[in-house]
């Protein structure tokens, strides 16, 4: 698999108001096992810091994870901020976890997050779908993630 062979770099982050970390500890292990090089920013990452770290680390993929119920609102603000930066406009960014306070899988919420610039949304932390996404991304040489460094 192209992704694992080339040890692409993933920036893993919590959202500005989310203090949870087990999701981030787990995802770091999971992504590392996929052969990816992971930079884990930890919890409560403000948008400006996220932008700075994206510039600094030039990742091939950004993974936003949130479980505190503010994931939709925080995730939306984060992607709007990222997409406003010309050099980050094409950077693949995905979000997943428990994104609302109600525990519902909300299609409208997913659509709005996609429209704002996320390449994929894994509501309710759908890990299998995320794994498929990583595989597909690795198999597509046209995407930035599939490109050689």
């Amino acid at each position: 698999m192209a992704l694992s062979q080339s040890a692409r770099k993933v920036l893993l982050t919590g959202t500005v108001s989310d203090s949870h970390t087990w999701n981030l500890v787990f995802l770091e292990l999971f992504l590392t096992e996929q052969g990816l090089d992971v930079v884990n920013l930890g919890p409560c990452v403000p948008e400006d810091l996220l932008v700075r770290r994206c510039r600094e680390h030039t990742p091939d993929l950004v993974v936003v994870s949130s479980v505190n119920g503010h994931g939709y609102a925080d995730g939306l603000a984060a992607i709007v901020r990222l997409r406003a930066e010309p050099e980050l406009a094409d950077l693949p960014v995905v979000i997943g976890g428990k994104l609302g306070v109600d525990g519902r899988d909300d299609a409208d919420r997913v659509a709005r997050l996609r429209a704002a610039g996320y390449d994929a949304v894994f509501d309710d932390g759908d890990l299998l779908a995320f794994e498929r996404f990583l595989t597909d991304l690795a198999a597509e040489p046209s995407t930035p993630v599939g490109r050689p460094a």
Partner: protein
Amino acid sequence: MSTPGGRSFGRFVADAADAGKLVVQPRMGFSDLRRMRAGLERTRFAAATTVGTVTIDSYTRVGAYDTARRALTDGTPLNGYPIVSYPLATTRALLDGVHDDTFPVQVRHGSSGPEQIIRALTAAGLHATEGGPVSYCLPYGRTPLRESVRNWAAGCELLAELAPGTAHLESFGGCLLGQLCPPGLLVAISLLEGIFFARHGITSVSLSYAQQTDPGQDVEAVHALRRLAAEFLPAQVDRHVVLYTYMGAFPSTARGARLLLEASAELAVRAGAQRLIVKTTAEAHRIPTVEENVRALEAAAAVAGLTEPDPGPPGDTGIYAEARGLVEAVLELDADLGVALHTAFRRGYLDVPYCLHPDNAGRSRSWIDDAGRLRWSSVGRMPIRATAEERPAMTSTRLLSALHTVARRYDQ
């Protein structure tokens, strides 16, 4: 409405304990005023000895008061009550006629910068909250520890000043990452934070401990905490132990969740804790409703009523000695406990397993042994011994399995 000078949160819990009652408390906070009010009223009138909870939302927790205010204007639901962003009159109206000497209310938040929250809660007539320089910094945020220590020293002094005679502060130190932290470290941090509060003017404290993977180990840990509190806290400081129902991944079946809650109520009484923070059957799925919280309170109270405290001390597997070793090592570092805590983390004398914070050494690791007990596989530079033999490397699958050990056991 209760005013400073009235009966404190600590006094209420002590009186309940004297009457042989375990105080039960929800983890509950809503931005919707009607729901928040209903939550307090229903908690007050539940068939149990209860105290109320106002849990603050995550924006307020990180000091983003404007974002919280915007969410209120936009009608976006928050995951808690934005006590700083709501006008004081709103919070007073929320509490009017429900909060009084017979029903104290604690504000729960998780903020490493608690000043505005303390100002808002005392202005509204409340005097009990929780937190700590370590437990509200390291596991769950990115505030530098030095800054959190400074904020919490000031926060304690502010609370003592604004609620003289009634200020109560609970250490969240017995929870840390919620799970996979061996009991010795949980007990040590809880006690150290209690001492920190006392040194900064708080005269009524509670020390926490979160239910872990093994009831025998947990009973021993709560005993160790009580014993160490008697040895290290100044005699004039009022104290009690608060137990948390399991704070990790919760059973997904209603039956499993109920059994785990009941086990925690039993543990609280057996081990001599005076207060229990409950979890609900909805925990694995979403933020619980008021109704689910009330059911959890009543179920816990019913089990507590049927449980007797253990007659003698539990067996000793070394939790007391481990916690004491950690506490002494920290206290010896500096006369100023805030400086000592900072130095302890910098040197790795305290090291929370799986914690991502940059001020944490990150060299300790834990695992759940075949008997279901939490053990150290690596202690890093902590002045204690690892009890485990060599373990296979932690993988995502093994971590997930460990994180769900308790849920799996109770769901079966």
